[in-house]
């Protein structure tokens, strides 16, 4: 068809425009795709981390072996889902190390073939074999058990085949109270340790052959439907570690937001590109119209052009970028410090294409409608061409689809809504600000000359005051750009802080330290060259009354499905561990109320008590409530002084209730302490010698667990940094383009002023005043709004604590200012240097 040809010719005539359009669309959608590749992979890595911690996709466990009927029900459920399975039994037992003639408490992990489905166990003798006996590294180190030693386990004796050097599985508990040994489940029966009366953990692990048919979450529901006994728990990888689940969650949300931000920024660019392009083409389009091409056909043609470029972008991404990525994934991995694999899930990206196309197209609607409203005949006569004006509701299709897309891509209405309303906020604030400023400026220039105080100022102010809607649009774009950049930066800081473990990580928890042992233990520790930290008293008590009313148990109907409900039951019994302290630890933060005063509880008032946030919510207790405790036979009252929040990455034992010192200090207590991470040799020695001297003191080794979580966090942070930078780059490119465009429009004005006697310097000053004011105010507003929005979205979508990163407010401000000024100067270079000759007729 004629107009198809015409439009192809168009692309040859205006290569620059189409190239820019292509590039902008590419950046915006590439952000989405690139992000989904990288974080899809990291997501998978995190998921596999979680899988490794659990060792399977689904774990069905109880404190007793499953009955035949229950096993049959499980079989029924899994009949439709191809899978592999094994059983693990974890029990504690006293075994005898024959060579040393010593008995030790160990955790026996009895496995079957297939263990583990995810992750691996590295042993000193090669690959792990489930039919052999292995000991854990700390058993070897602490108690000097060696390979080929014989261990008496119950009724049988087995030879140690090797030492497990690294076990990626954590089990459901996350840590062990005693060193582990690994033996075949078949032989565990022979040991006689499973006689009636035995307590332990019996777990059936399942690995799904493929996830497309059903996801673990769905299968979990199916199992709950047929197995009703509350004693049986179903655990998925993300349940098994609160930290892992949270990391995955935050990453997913952040990825969604960033992708969205990148896309919006690029669409702003697309809008501007088309606006100037259509204006440039307007005369020719009017001529076409005059010669019989209807407006409808013209608009269809433009849409066709756009669709063509869009498909080229998609083609590039799918047929060039993806194969390139696959080729260079290893190199990219080492450069980025992430482990990227060659796999790319194209299905998800492909399914987004129609939405992306619609969204991008909708941003053009106001322009196309403006074109519709242009009376083309008149335009041909007019000396200066202008597109028909667009109205606010022309943007509605874009706004609505943006809202929908936000919710879709973040898989949550909450996050989508928050983000969308944040953008609307920026929109309204910008419009308001610009209108107000223009009104003010008009008042200032009224009746005055140009010297305000200099001509450059005078012209600049007038430029700002009079550009009407154009200014609003420019301001809005700049404000949105800065807002989004600031949002990403602030969120990045907040998330990175959350995903950073304290440099002092705990290595051992030490508990059951009797009062009279505390000082001797500290001395002992000093002698051994270790510094114990977090020495905390622990006192057992019951919560009797709240505000003089008997504490009422929450009689909820729960189905004991999750850990949460287990905890609910525990709380129902109102027993708890108290501690007394007048300082906050590094992992605590008061979120409402006043901190404890110094000096402990005086005699003239009730002692104060500090409660953990979620616990207080569960118990329905507020600040100011009077609580009555029974501390091992003694009742006393206290008043709630503050509510505190405990960092979720805290690995320290946390207390829900903390009392001011001076009240219960004399009550019977035990102490907790923490051994911070340090050299392995020192840790071993300390453990050995401490157990010898203080046999009742117990240890929990958390070093491995924390190490694994630490690397998990590092990986997540890495991904988040990359995503942030991607969006930032997009944002800056767009801002540059916008700035450039603004200035370039002034070409003729600048040339004229040059003719009239303005020096290059003065011309530049004029531009700096006018656009500097515009950029600076838009940018400041954007940065501030971005910070504010980050606090809200951070709290609601990511459950982060508020923060102000002044550095990230100040330096971007500085940088963006410099960027904008540089843009102004660069873009105006040609105009400023232009020979006035170009103003004359035959140029």
């Amino acid at each position, binding site marked *: 068809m004629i107009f198809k040809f015409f439009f192809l010719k168009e692309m040859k005539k205006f290569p620059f425009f189409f190239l820019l359009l292509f590039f902008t669309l590419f950046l915006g959608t590439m952000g989405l795709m690139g992000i989904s590749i990288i974080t899809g992979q990291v997501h998978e890595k995190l998921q596999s981390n979680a899988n490794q911690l659990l060792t399977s996709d689904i774990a069905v466990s109880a404190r007793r072996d499953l009955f035949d009927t229950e096993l049959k029900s499980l079989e029924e459920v899994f009949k439709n889902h191809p899978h592999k399975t094994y059983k693990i039994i974890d029990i504690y037992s006293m075994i005898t190390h024959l060579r040393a003639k010593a008995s030790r408490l160990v955790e026996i992990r009895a496995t079957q073939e297939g263990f583990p489905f995810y992750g691996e166990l590295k042993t000193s003798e090669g690959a792990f074999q489930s039919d052999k006996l292995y000991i854990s590294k700390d058993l070897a180190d602490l108690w000097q058990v060696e390979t080929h030693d014989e261990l008496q386990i119950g009724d049988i004796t087995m030879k140690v085949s090797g030492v497990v050097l690294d076990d990626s599985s954590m089990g459901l508990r996350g840590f062990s109270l005693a060193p582990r040994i690994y033996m075949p489940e078949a032989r565990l029966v022979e040991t006689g340790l499973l006689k009636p009366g035995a307590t332990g953990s019996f777990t059936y692990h399942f690995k799904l052959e493929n996830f497309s048919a059903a996801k673990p979450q769905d299968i979990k529901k199916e199992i709950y439907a047929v197995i009703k006994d509350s004693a049986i728990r179903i655990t998925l990888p993300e349940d098994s570690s609160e930290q892992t689940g949270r990391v995955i969650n935050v990453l997913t949300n952040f990825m969604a937001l960033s992708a969205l931000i990148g896309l919006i920024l690029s669409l702003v660019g697309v809008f501007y590109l088309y606006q100037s392009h259509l204006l440039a083409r307007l005369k020719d389009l009017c001529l076409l119209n005059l010669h019989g091409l209807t407006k409808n056909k013209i608009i269809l043609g433009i849409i066709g052009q756009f669709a063509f470029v869009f498909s080229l972008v998609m083609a590039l991404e799918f047929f060039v970028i993806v194969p390139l990525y696959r080729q260079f994934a290893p190199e990219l991995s080492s450069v980025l410090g992430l482990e990227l694999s060659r796999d790319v899930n194209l299905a998800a990206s492909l399914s987004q294409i129609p939405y992306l196309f619609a969204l991008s197209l909708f941003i053009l609607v106001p322009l196309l409608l403006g074109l519709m409203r242009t009376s083309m005949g008149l335009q041909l006569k007019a000396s200066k061409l202008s597109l028909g004006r667009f109205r606010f509701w022309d943007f509605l299709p874009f706004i609505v689809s943006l809202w929908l897309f936000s919710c879709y891509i973040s898989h949550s209405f909450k996050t989508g809504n928050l983000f969308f309303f944040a953008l609307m906020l920026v929109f309204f604030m910008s419009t308001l600000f610009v209108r107000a400023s223009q009104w003010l400026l008009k008042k200032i220039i009224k009746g005055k000359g140009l010297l305000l105080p200099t001509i450059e100022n005078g012209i600049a102010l007038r430029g700002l005051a009079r550009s009407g809607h154009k200014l609003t649009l420019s301001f809005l774009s700049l404000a949105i750009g800065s807002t989004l950049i600031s949002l990403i930066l602030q969120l990045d800081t907040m998330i990175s802080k959350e995903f950073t473990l304290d440099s002092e990580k705990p290595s051992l928890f030490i508990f059951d330290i009797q009062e009279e042992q505390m000082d001797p233990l500290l001395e002992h520790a000093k002698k051994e060259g270790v510094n114990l930290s977090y020495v905390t008293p622990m006192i057992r008590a019951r919560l009797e009354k709240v505000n003089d009313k008997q504490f009422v148990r929450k009689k909820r109907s729960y189905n004991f499905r999750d850990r949460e409900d287990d905890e609910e039951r525990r709380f129902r019994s109102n027993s708890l561990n108290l501690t007394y302290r007048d300082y906050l630890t590094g992992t605590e933060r008061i979120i409402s109320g006043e901190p404890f005063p110094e000096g402990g509880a005086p005699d003239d008032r009730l002692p104060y008590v500090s409660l953990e946030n979620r616990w207080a919510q569960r118990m329905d207790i507020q600040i100011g409530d009077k609580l009555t405790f029974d501390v091992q036979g003694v009742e006393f009252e206290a008043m709630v002084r503050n509510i505190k929040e405990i960092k979720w990455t805290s690995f320290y034992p946390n207390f829900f209730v903390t009392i001011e010192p001076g009240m219960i200090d004399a009550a019977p207590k035990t102490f907790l302490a923490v051994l911070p991470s340090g050299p392995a040799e020192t840790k071993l020695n300390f453990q050995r010698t401490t157990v010898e001297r203080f046999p*009742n003191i117990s240890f929990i080794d958390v070093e491995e667990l924390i190490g694994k979580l630490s690397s998990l966090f590092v990986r997540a942070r890495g991904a988040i940094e990359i995503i942030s930078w991607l969006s930032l780059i997009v944002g800056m490119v767009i801002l540059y383009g916008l700035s450039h465009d603004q200035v370039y429009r002034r070409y003729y004005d600048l040339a004229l002023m040059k003719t009239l006697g303005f020096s290059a310097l003065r011309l530049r000053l004029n531009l700096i005043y006018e656009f500097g004011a515009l950029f600076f105010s838009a940018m400041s507003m954007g940065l501030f709004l971005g910070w504010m929005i980050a606090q809200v979205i951070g709290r609601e979508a990511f459950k982060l604590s508020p923060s102000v990163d002044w550095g990230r407010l100040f330096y971007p401000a500085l940088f963006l200012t410099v960027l904008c000024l540089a843009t102004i100067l660069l873009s105006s270079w040609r105009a400023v240097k232009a020979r006035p000759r170009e103003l004359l007729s035959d140029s």
Partner: protein
Amino acid sequence: MKFIMSLLFLISFSVHAQTVLFLGDSLTEGYQLAKEEAYPALIEKELQKKRKDIKVINGGVSGATSASGMKRLDWYLKSKPDIMVLALGANDGLRGLKLADTEKNLSQVIEKAQAKGITVILAGMQMPTNMGVKYRDEFQKMFPKVAKKYSIKLIPFLLEGVGAVPELNLPDGIHPNAKGHKIMAQTVLKVLETEL
């Protein structure tokens, strides 16, 4: 405040009823249960049906080992117990501690109590089968041995009829539920009543 507290303490126990102290761990405390559901409270209720002047102190602390016995006894001496039911040692066993130490700790507590004129009843315990035959045996034999040494009454097995019975325990399989505690109360009463 502290002065008033100690006064309260004395006052609540000064009208001298017969006071029975239960010094134990989670089994005595009533882990995950309300105070009224644990066996000491059940015993108090039962006894008060017959005589009004009985007072029971629940000195159970979850997780306590025998090493904590001495200090805690000191704390409760203030309330001048007449009888003490000593139900410690289970956690020592679960942690695989040396039984010689457990025996020593229990002995010290009994000696101190007897020195103060308190009648002691010892509650015997058993370890689950997974702990191994040898350890189980040693552990189980410890209690009658100590009881004999100090000529005190022994409750043969605190969890008689309760241990390892799923319906009488919480889902963790270790701690008795409310039903289980009822049975425990009966088990203890059988011996306690002989000392009242």
